[in-house]
């Protein structure tokens, strides 16, 4: 049985970007939000450190400095007009969140307090600047709560625990989505004039990750399967300070407040890699520095981790400004950060790439950037591209609020004027076929085995450091995993909360994202930002100052195209800190 719903605007995903878009759209058009979780479970809530905006509350700052840092931090793969918009609108976005009740930490005068964060500097790299607005080390939690509260106030219609499995296109226009209701097993068709994807990242392609189990690249994969391109999928950020072996994020705010990294000799090794800003260098550089220390035998006890040390910080800073991070160390490592250094290793953290959009959140096709009528994306699942090859800390929370708002605003305007697209045939049929295909087997491959192998090999071969040899090997592995996935077996044949079926779908999406990532990484024989090729360690602007677009070919292979980076006032230069 299929139920059909009709809305003006449908938003898929209820994290920061989705909720911010919903607030904007629901003011003027009939809006529904579909999420495979309850909104407050979204991974925006796990963001810790802050949201940057050049408020200048504690020292001089300017949006132009913020834009420069964003472009340089992204290793010049950033589309500069998009970064300029983000850094300019940051100020108004933060103020609006404050007006909506977000409990920011305060200065003695009662203004929003600000602190240092990696790669954010005064006057084009002179010294670290205090730019990150924050609420202790749970800024993302407070943003998610505040936006959800505003949605409650506006009576936004939520479809919780509805899993979006397909995108409907009619004559090149977006016509809606198909979703699977977890509580009942029913398939729903959502007809809409406009759809916005805000499904978050796909960090679960890697074994060690800070990402939630839910982050399986659903939105990008659904678009990819419908022939839409994915941009810069090879640009994946590894955050330097994940809890050893578990990958749980320990915020960069720890270093923003004065924490330092130590190797086995007790040396503050970042002084050698980034003499000016040291431990507050951008994440890609710090993660590579850790890799290098470990490779040269200076990991702790010769092993594959180093220490994050806050023992020298005042106790009240640790307890009041970093309470959650401190608790993670206590709960998961049995380490007392006030008296012991904390074992950390780089953890897969953030996808700079995703569904290509323009600065109004419209999904765009190909090198000429033709918008797809009615289709939008925002947040981590999108690529606008403000993060380029490496995102600066705090710019993700900024991205979701700024481009969630812009996307929501544009989709509402579009939906007010557009006609509801007619839908030919049976829109739910392909989804129903896939469900049947997964459920009607008596035996087959175990999804968990396939997923574990995917995550381990991706972490080793397509992680912090990549080579042609490793990536070619990964391509072969992916081919094998794809074959096994075709024969995957779902034991649960029920309709009520068949989360095993959901996980099987998620695994398919992870494979899609991995294939696009590896294809882009293999072709890009240079090193830039989060993409480091040990066999091509230098940046190559002559050949590679361009965005990758990956398409799913009809024969199943991945085809690559490229498009120009939108430049601006900042000329690429060597990235030193």
């Amino acid at each position, binding site marked *: 049985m299929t139920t059909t719903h009709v809305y003006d605007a449908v938003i898929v995903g209820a994290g920061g970007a989705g909720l911010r878009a919903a607030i904007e759209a629901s003011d003027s058009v009939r809006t529904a939000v579909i999420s495979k979780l309850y909104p407050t479970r979204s991974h925006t809530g*796990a963001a810790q450190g802050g949201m940057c905006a050049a408020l200048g509350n504690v020292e001089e700052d300017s949006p132009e400095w913020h834009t420069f840092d964003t472009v340089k931090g992204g290793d010049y793969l950033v589309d500069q007009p998009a970064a300029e918009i983000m850094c300019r609108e940051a100020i108004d976005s933060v103020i609006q969140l404050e007006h909506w009740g977000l*409990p920011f930490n305060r200065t*003695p005068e009662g203004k929003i307090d600000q602190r240092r964060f990696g790669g954010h500097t005064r006057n084009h790299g002179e010294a670290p600047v205090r730019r990150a607005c924050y609420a202790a080390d*749970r800024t993302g939690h*407070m943003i998610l709560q505040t936006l959800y509260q505003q949605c409650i106030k506006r009576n936004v219609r939520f479809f919780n625990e509805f899993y979006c499995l397909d995108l409907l296109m009619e004559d090149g226009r977006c016509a809606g989505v198909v979703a699977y209701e977890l509580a009942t097993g029913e398939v729903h068709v959502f007809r809409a004039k406009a759809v916005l994807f805000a499904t978050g990242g796909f960090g679960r392609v890697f074994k060690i990750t800070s990402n939630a*189990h839910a982050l399986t690249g659903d939105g990008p994969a659904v678009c990819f399967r419908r022939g839409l391109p994915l941009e810069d999928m090879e640009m994946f950020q590894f955050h330097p300070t994940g809890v050893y072996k578990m990958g749980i994020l320990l915020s960069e705010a720890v270093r923003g407040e004065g924490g330092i990294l130590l190797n086995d000799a007790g040396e503050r090794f970042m002084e050698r890699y980034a003499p000016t800003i040291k431990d507050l260098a951008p994440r890609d550089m710090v993660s590579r520095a850790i890799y290098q220390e470990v490779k040269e035998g200076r990991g702790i006890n010769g092993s594959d981790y180093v220490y994050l040390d806050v023992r020298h910080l005042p106790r009240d800073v640790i307890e009041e400004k970093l309470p959650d991070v401190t608790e993670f160390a206590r709960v998961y490592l049995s380490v007392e950060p006030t008296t012991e250094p904390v074992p950390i290793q780089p953890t897969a953290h953030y996808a700079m790439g995703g569904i290509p959009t323009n600065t109004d959140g419209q999904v765009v096709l190909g090198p000429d950037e033709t918008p797809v009528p009615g289709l939008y994306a925002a947040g981590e699942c999108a690529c606008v591209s403000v993060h380029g090859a490496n995102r600066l800390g705090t710019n993700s929370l900024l991205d979701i609020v700024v481009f969630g708002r812009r996307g929501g605003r544009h989709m509402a305007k579009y939906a007010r004027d557009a006609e509801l697209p007619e839908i030919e045939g049976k829109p739910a049929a392909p989804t129903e076929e896939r469900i049947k295909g997964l459920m009607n087997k008596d035996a087959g491959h175990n999804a968990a085995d396939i997923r574990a192998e995917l995550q381990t090999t991706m972490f080793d071969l397509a992680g912090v450091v990549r080579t042609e040899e490793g990536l070619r090997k990964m391509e072969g592995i992916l081919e094998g995993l794809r074959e096994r996935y075709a024969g995957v077996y779902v034991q649960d044949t*029920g309709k*009520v*909360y068949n989360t*095993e079926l959901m996980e099987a779908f998620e695994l398919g999406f992870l494979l899609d994202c991995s294939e696009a990532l590896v294809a882009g990484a293999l072709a890009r024989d240079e090193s830039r930002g989060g993409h480091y090729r040990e066999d091509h360690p230098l940046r190559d602007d002559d050949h590679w100052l361009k965005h990758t677009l990956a398409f799913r070919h009809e024969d199943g292979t991945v085809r690559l195209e490229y498009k120009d980076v939108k430049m601006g006032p900042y000329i690429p230069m060597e990235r030193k800190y």
Partner: protein
Amino acid sequence: MAAEPLGDVLAGSEERRVEGSDKVSISVRVRRYNPEVREESWWDEWEISMEPNDRLLDALHHIKWYEDGTLALRRSCAHGICGSDAMLINGRNALACKVLVKDVAPKVTVEPIRGLRVLKDLIVDMDTFFDGYKKMLPYLINDEGEPDRERLQSPEDRAKFDDTTKCILCAACTTSCPIFWGDGDYIGPAAIVNAHRFINDSRDHGARERLKILSERTGVFRCKTTFNCTEACPRGIHVTQAIQEVKRSILFDRF
């Protein structure tokens, strides 16, 4: 009932090491329910090997992925922030991702949180829980014109509601409350915590409306200070204290 740390309550005295590895053996007993299979709940038990530092959530995943794919639970972030995996673990509410195997081995009992309708295995109907939250008008109420810049708030005023901003709406507190078990109309600790967060925010003007709702029969005076909620809170919020502060606001403050 005063509570002890979770691991001390029912855990056996000795870990059982698995020979030739660092793993420990743990028996996981889960209360199952599936309306498509039978009307009554039943118990299943698995004996598995896990790393001592694995989370109980990892153990449940191991069962789901390698023993019984039909086991249903909610989870997402796996480090105590998203609030998906509140469960009754050895008789006490906690998040499965914040309980380590070594603290409950060699035997652990897992059930759905109480007082909400069970839908399948460890998954309960959260809609009624969120309905209680929504009753509290959980958003900043301030009809004055918005200034160009941020509203000012002193660090001291900000500190007054810091504790209750930590709430992740996991329902561990509300579903540990015996009053809530007896009367599902009681608005419950989580809703009161979130009301507290706004009532004590110097920028908010909605206290009168919220306190009126909270002084009704289903409101804050149902609380009999059992402290279960405070002990259950995975975020360390002083829930009972927040409830007492709201009671005092109704009795003594003039709004």
